[in-house]
C-alpha cells in the first residue's frame, strides 16, 4: 500500500518519454500538421518555390521568343480533326492564315490543323543552362518536336504568357523575399531596441514610426517612381523598386516586435537574467530575441503575400521592373487598357498566380501562428 508520495528533499523527475522532450521545432511541426489549411499552404509554397527555382525546366517556351501577337490559348485535344481518339494528346498552333477578315482586312488567325503538335512530358525544347551552369534542353512539358506551344496564349509581342509567368515568378518572389528580409531586419532591430530600452528613446522612435505609418502610401510610391531616371540600368531600377517597397514596410513590423518585447522585458526570466548580472546585449540576444522570433516568422509569412500583391499592383499602375527582366507586375502593366482585357482576357493570367501565391503564404502564416506558441 505504498502511495506515490515524494521524498522530502530530492524529487523524482518524470522520465524523458513521450513528447515531453521534443525539440521546439518538432513541437511546432506537430501542431502545424494538425491545421489542414496550413498544410495546404505549406505544400503550395513548396510547389511555388520549386517552380521558381527550376523555372527554365518548367517553362515550355523561351519567354523571349516572339510569335503571333495576342494568340489565344491553345487547346489540348484527345481527338484528331475527324473525331478519332489519339494518343498522345495533341494541340494545334495558332497561325495567321492567308485569308483576310472582310471587315478589318487583318489576317485571320486560327488553329493550324495541318501541323498537329503532339504533347509529352520531359521533352526536348529550347536550350538553357540550369543555375547558369549545367547546359540542358529538357522541359517538363511541351511539344515533342520542340516547337512552341502557348497554353495560356501570347502577349502583344507574341511571347508565351505561361512561360513568362513562370520566369516572372522569379523576380516577383525575389523582390518579395528581399523586401521582407529588409523590413524584418530593420523592423525587428528597431522594435527590440525601442521596446527594451524604453523611456525617451522609445517615445521618439515610436513617434517616427507613427509618422511612417501615417504616410499616404500610394502617392509616395508613385512620387518615388518618378525619381528614377528612365535611362537607369535594369539592376539599378530593380534595387530602387526594392528600396521603395521596403521604405514603409518596416514600421508595422517594428510595432509588432516592440509590443512583444515590452511584454517580454517585464517577464521574470529577464529580471532573473538582470539579477545574474547579464549585459543588455546578452539579454536581448539570449532571452528576448529567441522568444520574439516565433512571432517574427509568422509576420514574415504574412508579409510576403502583401509584397507580392503590392508588386503586381504597382506594376499595374506602371511602376515595375524594366524589361528584359520579367515580373508579374510588369506583365500586368499590359492589362491597363480595358479594350485589351476585353479582347484578350488571357493576359490576365498572372492574376491567378498572384492569387495562389497570396493564398499559399497566408494559409501557411495562419497555420504557423497557431503552431509557434506551444508552451
Amino acid at each position: 500500500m505504498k502511495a506515490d508520495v515524494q521524498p522530502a528533499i530530492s524529487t523524482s523527475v518524470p522520465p524523458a518519454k513521450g513528447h515531453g522532450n521534443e525539440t521546439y521545432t518538432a513541437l511546432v511541426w506537430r501542431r502545424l500538421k494538425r491545421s489542414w489549411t496550413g498544410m495546404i499552404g505549406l505544400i503550395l509554397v513548396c510547389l511555388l518555390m520549386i517552380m521558381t527555382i527550376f523555372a527554365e525546366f518548367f517553362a515550355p517556351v523561351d519567354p523571349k521568343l516572339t510569335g503571333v501577337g495576342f494568340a489565344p490559348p491553345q487547346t489540348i485535344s484527345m481527338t484528331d480533326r475527324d473525331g478519332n481518339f489519339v494518343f498522345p494528346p495533341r494541340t494545334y498552333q495558332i497561325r495567321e492564315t492567308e485569308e483576310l477578315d472582310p471587315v478589318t482586312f487583318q489576317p485571320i488567325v486560327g488553329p493550324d490543323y495541318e501541323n498537329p503538335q503532339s504533347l509529352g512530358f520531359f521533352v526536348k525544347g529550347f536550350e538553357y543552362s540550369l543555375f547558369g551552369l549545367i547546359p540542358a534542353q529538357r522541359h517538363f512539358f511541351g511539344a515533342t518536336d520542340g516547337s512552341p506551344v502557348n497554353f495560356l496564349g501570347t502577349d502583344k509581342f507574341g511571347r508565351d504568357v505561361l512561360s513568362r509567368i513562370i520566369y516572372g515568378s522569379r523576380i516577383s518572389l525575389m523582390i518579395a523575399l528581399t523586401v521582407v528580409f529588409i523590413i524584418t531586419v530593420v523592423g525587428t532591430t528597431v522594435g527590440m531596441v525601442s521596446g527594451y530600452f524604453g523611456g525617451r528613446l522609445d517615445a521618439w522612435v515610436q513617434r517616427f514610426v507613427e509618422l511612417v505609418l501615417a504616410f499616404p502610401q500610394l502617392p509616395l510610391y508613385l512620387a518615388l517612381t518618378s525619381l528614377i531616371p528612365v535611362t537607369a540600368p535594369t539592376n539599378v531600377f530593380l534595387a530602387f523598386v526594392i528600396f521603395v517597397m521596403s521604405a514603409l514596410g518596416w514600421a508595422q513590423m517594428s510595432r509588432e516586435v516592440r509590443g512583444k518585447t515590452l511584454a517580454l522585458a517585464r517577464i521574470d526570466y529577464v529580471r532573473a537574467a538582470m539579477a545574474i548580472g547579464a549585459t543588455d546585449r546578452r539579454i536581448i540576444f539570449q532571452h528576448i530575441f529567441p522568444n520574439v522570433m516565433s512571432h517574427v516568422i509568422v509576420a514574415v509569412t504574412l508579409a510576403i503575400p502583401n509584397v507580392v500583391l503590392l508588386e503586381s499592383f504597382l506594376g499595374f499602375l506602371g511602376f515595375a521592373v524594366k524589361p528584359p527582366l520579367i515580373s508579374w507586375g510588369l506583365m500586368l502593366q499590359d492589362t491597363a487598357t480595358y479594350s485589351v482585357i476585353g479582347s484578350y482576357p488571357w493576359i490576365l493570367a498572372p492574376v491567378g498566380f498572384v492569387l495562389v501565391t497570396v493564398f499559399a503564404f497566408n494559409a501557411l502564416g495562419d497555420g504557423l501562428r497557431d503552431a509557434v506558441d506551444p508552451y
Partner: protein
Amino acid sequence: MALTEKISMAPDERCDHAARTGSPIIDARNVAVTFKVEGGTVDAVKDVSFQLYRGETIAVVGESGSGKSVTARTVMGLLTKRATVAVHSRIEYDGKNVLKFSDRQRRALRGDRISMIFQEPMSSLNPVYTVGAQIIEAIRVHQKMSRKQAAERTLELLRQVQIPDPESRFNQYPHQLSGGQRQRVMIAMALANNPDVLIADEPTTALDVTVQAQILNLIRDLQQKLGMAVILITHDLTVVRQFSDYVYVMSQGEVKEHNTTDALFKSPQHPYTRHLLASEPKGMANPPPVDSAVILEGSNVRVSFMLKHGGFFRSRLKELVAVDSLSLKLHRHETLGLVGESGSGKTTFGQALVKLLTADGGEIFFDGEPIHARTRDQMRPLRSRMQVVFQDPFSSLNPRMSVGQIIEEGLIVNRLGDNKSDRLARVEQALVSAGLPHNILSRFPHEFSGGQRQRIAIARAIALEPEFILLDEPTSALDLSVQAQIIDLLRKLQDERGLSYLFISHDLKVVRALCHRVVVMQHGKIVEEGPVDEVLSHPKTAYTERLVKAAFEVAA
C-alpha cells in the same frame, strides 16, 4: 490490492451513510472524464463518486491537477468540447441524471438550481456592465420578473452579501470594487435564484489572506440561512477543517479517501491523506550564529512611482510612494521575513535592496560597501554574491533555453569556472544540491512540474555560490506538499552554506517555518518587527494580529 484499498478507504457510499435520512441532492457515481490532448488523451478524472445532502458543506481537497475542478465543472455541464464524460458515469440531481440532459435542460439547471463561484473574481465579471445590471440579468434569465422587481431583489442580495453601501455599489463597474467585494458580487449573483447547491471553486485563492476569512464566513452564514448545500473545492486544509462537514480527498483523478471532517483529521487512513496533512509547513529554522556580521543593510530606502493623473496638454503626475523610508538589517546566516498583504510594497522594497529597481532615496550597503549609487554596470561584480528567486517558476525560466543553459548562463556572465567542463561540473553540482538529478541538462523547463521548476530556479541562484538570496514568495505558486519540500531545501542550503535570505511572503505559516526575524509591512511602511516567535505569538498591532489569525485559524 487496489480493489481492497478502494473498498476500505473510498467506497462509493458515504461513511456516514447510515446516519443520513432522505436521499442526497447530488449523487455522483463513477464519474470519469477524459480530455483530448496532443498526442493522446488524458484521464483528468478517473473514478469519482460523491454524495451531497441538503444543507451541508462537503469539501473536495486535492493538489493542482487532481481533477477537483474538472469534477465540479462536470456537475455544472461546463466542460470544454475536448472533454468526454464516460458513458457509465452518473450524476443525479434530485434523482435525475444531469449527464443525460439536453443543453436546454442544463441551462435551466445552471445558475438556477446549481450555481458556481470561481477562483478569479477579476475575470468572472464583465467589465463593461455595472454590477447591478449583471445581477439583474442573472435573475431575469431564470425568473419572470420586471426590471424593477429584479433591481429590488438585487439590492436585497447585495445587502445579504454584506457589501457596504449597496445602493451606490449597484451602479458601479467591477473595476471600482476591491477583490473581496467582487467575490461578494459573484456570490450575490450565484445566490440570485436561491439555488439548492452552491459550488465554490477555490473561492478565496486569489484574495488576500485577511479577506479570505471574511468570504468563507459569509458563505457559511448564507448557507445556514438559506439551507443550501455547498461543495467547497480547495487545497487549503485549514479551510477544510473549519468549514466543511464531510471531506473527499482527491489525487490523480480519484477519490483516495473520504470521511467526516472530524474523523478524517483525527485518523487519516490513506497514505496520501497522511502525506497531505503532514505537509503543512512546520519546524523552525536553526538559530543563526550569534553576533554574525551584517550582510545587507538598507537605511531610509524610499521608492516611489509617478502615475499619470489626467491632464490633456501636460500630464499631471501623482506620486505613489511604494516604500516609505524603510530601514532593515540582515545578518549573515539569517533569514528575515518581509510580510504583508498584496500592495504593501514588500516586493518593491526587496527588489530595491538588490538594485533591480532604483530607489529614489536612502542608503543600501552590501557587506559594508555602499551600493545605492552604483549603476547597473557597477553592480555587475556583486551580482554573483546576491541572487534572486522569483515567485512564479513558470515565468522565471526562459522556455527556449535548456536547464543546462539556464544555470550555466550565470557562470558565463560572471566568468566563474575555468572552462566548459568545469562549468558543467558546477551546474551538475548545483542541480544535485537543489535535489534534482544531474542528467537533466538538455531538457527544457516545460517538461517539469512547478516544484521542480522552482528547484531549477534555486539551482540557478546557488550555482553562483551567493552569500545572500532574495526569495520573492518562492512557495506561493506551489502546492502544499511541494511547498514543504522547498522550505526543507532552503533550510538545508542555508545550514550547509551559511546563506542569508530575505524572504518575502504573505503566508505566515511559511514564514514561521523558515525565518528568524520578521518585518511586517503595510502601505509601504513597517508596522512591526522582531523575532519570529515573538511577533507571531504576541502581535503588537491589530494588522499583524489579523495576518496571524488569517494564517493560523482562518475564522478571523
